[in-house]
């Protein structure tokens, strides 16, 4: 199996040993070509593999034991599944003869993970391994990517078989993802782009997954149309570009949500019309014809009716579309977008992200703006889930893809730290920044030991409001400020905790301390925790209440 992994170019594994995987670990011990990173919890191992995959675009690999090892991995798998992250998780299983006997550390792993993986396998014969592992990597990384689990009983890992290498090409009769888009549909799309008076691009994680940022950027600049991105799509188009309107949806910008509500042509690229994006479906992009480019046919017309569906790899399709827009005569016959841009400029003047600065209390948005400024916008940014995640999305403006790690679909608190570990392992020379909250960080805080063990210089910024901030915000808005169980005032002293884990800790209580703390942290070589005590009751604005139309934003 280890040789198989090597041939599949899976040279970095995140895992946690246990009884059912002892033979595998023994082989890893003898084999020095595969680097193994020991997490402190299986969930951490899977998120780290996920972070590794998001940054590199390669298949992340996790290795866990049977029973509790596998059940601990489930949250990580579900997170990766919702965000379409290519990953292979290998789990140990009790020996074949004991399966179904309620054996020690037995769980029906294939049954449990069926609905949170793209596909999964139970290996029944050792001869099948050399077929199944390449299949798993192939399925994980092609079409709409996703996690694949391979469950291997202990006796199979002990058995020996002849290994003649992995096949050059995997052929699965019933699995053939489409690459190229239908040319007729692409022509229709080009025609609509030519006629549109108020075109608008809406792009998602599919752009990142397909490595289509360059193609997208070129095409959108050629057209001069505005673009908005989902949370998952950030970095797919440069945030510093004048054509970028910011994120859309529940915490999207005023201009992005207004523009979607007003556009006459919406081009969805690698995005799936999630409920946090659309708000009230009936009033989403009511004036627009919709072009939807996506690799997954089930995403098309699932939530919103689509006029021109194009199924295929986003990058291929953009490459097919671009020449049509460069044909002689295309530009001349296009509608003038100037009136559209003047509408947008008026919305921009609303300055929806503005917040009130103050001398005594740190505003969370200010911390993230400073982080962005002092890292030159060049960090790989991991986040957890909640208010800090939205502020990071709004204020850490990314210009490049594969530098944004966030659990968008499942919304997994505790994702950030292990994901940052995966990112730092993948990119040892680059700055990795974790923006988190005091609630989220505590969900996988044990991974600080992993950071220490491998001397990973991750910079952790806690936006500490001593509240489960997003829960509190909803309670304030929709439950008459009854803050049921969202008060997190009791939390560890993170500066001392950093010290206990062999990291450095700094605290900022006042606005004037923010910049010095960040500078100090960035100057350190190892792991650093920055504890920013921010305004406890700051809210994320704008906000579209759940189920409301995008136009019905609550603004500060």
């Amino acid at each position, binding site marked *: 199996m280890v040789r198989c992994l090597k041939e599949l170019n899976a040279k970095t594994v995140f895992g946690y040993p246990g009884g059912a995987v002892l033979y595998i670990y023994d082989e890893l011990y003898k084999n020095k070509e595969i680097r193994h990173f020991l997490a402190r919890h299986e969930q951490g191992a899977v998120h780290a593999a996920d972070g590794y995959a998001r940054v590199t675009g390669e298949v992340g690999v996790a290795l866990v034991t049977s029973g509790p090892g596998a059940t601990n991995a489930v949250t990580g798998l579900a997170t990766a599944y919702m965000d379409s992250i290519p990953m292979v998780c290998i789990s140990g299983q009790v020996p074949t003869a004991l399966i179904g006997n309620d054996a020690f550390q037995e769980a029906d792993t*294939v*049954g449990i993970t*069926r*609905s949170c993986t*793209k*596909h999964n396998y*139970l290996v029944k014969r050792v001869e099948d391994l050399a077929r199944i592992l390449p299949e798993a990597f192939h*399925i994980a990384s092609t*079409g*709409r990517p*996703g996690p694949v689990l391979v469950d291997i009983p202990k006796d199979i890992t002990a058995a020996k078989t002849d290994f003649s290498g992995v096949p050059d090409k995997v052929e*699965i*009769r*019933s*699995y*053939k*993802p*489409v690459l190229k888009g239908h040319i007729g549909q692409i022509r229709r799309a080009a025609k609509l782009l030519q006629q549109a008076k108020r075109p608008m691009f809406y792009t998602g994680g599919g752009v990142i997954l397909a490595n289509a940022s360059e193609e997208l950027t070129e095409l959108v600049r050629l057209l001069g149309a505005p673009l908005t991105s989902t949370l998952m799509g950030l970095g797919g188009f440069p945030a510093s570009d004048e054509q970028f309107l910011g994120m859309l949806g529940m915490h999207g910008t005023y201009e992005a949500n207004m523009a979607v509500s007003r556009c006459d042509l919406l081009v969805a690229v690698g995005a799936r019309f999630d409920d946090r994006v659309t708000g009230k479906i009936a009033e989403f992009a009511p004036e627009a014809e919709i072009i939807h480019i*996506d*690799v*997954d*046919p*089930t995403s098309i*017309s*699932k939530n919103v009716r689509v006029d021109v569906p194009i*199924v*295929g*790899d986003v990058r291929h399709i953009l490459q097919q579309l671009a020449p049509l827009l460069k044909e002689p005569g295309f530009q001349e016959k296009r509608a003038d977008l100037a009136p559209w841009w003047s509408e947008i400029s008026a919305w921009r003047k609303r300055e929806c992200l503005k917040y009130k600065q103050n001398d005594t209390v740190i505003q969370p948005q200010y911390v993230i703006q400073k982080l962005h400024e002092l890292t030159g916008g060049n960090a790989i940014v991991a986040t957890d889930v909640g208010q800090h995640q939205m502020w990071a999305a709004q204020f850490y403006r990314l210009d490049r893809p594969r530098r944004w790690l966030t659990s968008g679909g499942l919304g997994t608190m505790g994702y950030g730290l292990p994901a940052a570990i995966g990112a730092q392992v993948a990119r040892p020379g680059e700055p990795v920044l974790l923006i988190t909250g005091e609630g989220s960080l505590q969900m996988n805080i044990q991974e600080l030991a992993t950071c220490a063990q491998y001397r990973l210089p991750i910079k952790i910024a806690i936006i500490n409001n001593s509240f489960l901030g997003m829960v509190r915000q909803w309670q304030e808005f929709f439950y008459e400020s009854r803050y049921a169980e969202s008060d997190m005032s009791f939390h560890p002293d993170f500066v001392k905790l950093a010290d206990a884990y062999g990291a450095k800790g700094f605290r900022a209580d006042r606005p004037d301390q923010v910049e010095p703390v960040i500078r100090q942290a960035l100057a350190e070589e190892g792991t650093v925790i920055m504890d920013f005590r921010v305004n406890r009751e700051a809210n994320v604005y704008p906000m579209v209440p759940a189920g409301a139309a995008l136009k019905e934003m609550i603004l500060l």
Partner: protein
Amino acid sequence: MKHIISVLVDNEAGVLSRVAGLFSARGFNIETLTVAPVGEGNESRMTIVTTGDESIVEQVTKQLHKLVPVIRVVDLTEGPHVSRELMLVKVAAEGEHRSEVLRIADIFRCRVVDATAGSFIIEVTGGSEKLDACLDLLRPLGLVEVVRTGRVAISRGARETGVAARTGSKTTGA
């Protein structure tokens, strides 16, 4: 509206639970489901009867396509097709009811496959409506137990089900 979806799958462990799990996870409805190996035994054919409007059935078929062991998915209700169901009925009939049971069996072209002094087992095949009608007549005569297979169906004409049709060969993404 009712739809009959014919699904050709690799005959491997767990494929039934993948298909059934997909229906339950996405809140789709399964009315009947039959499955048996076909061909050389390395494939299985499932026939699923489901209800829902066009958009739901479109999602069902697309989602089924996405499962790795699924080879082909066809909504048979889109074209001409033949569907049949088999039912076994146990009737505890005595006295004059016995001849009444046999008369009904004759009308519906059923076969009597088991008879004792106090009971019959009757085998009926046909469309689901015919089975329902037969059952309605047998009920007052001492119905004990009913077993039905659920519908199986096949497209009319010379072509293999789903081959070269619009919903034909599997070339979906993901």
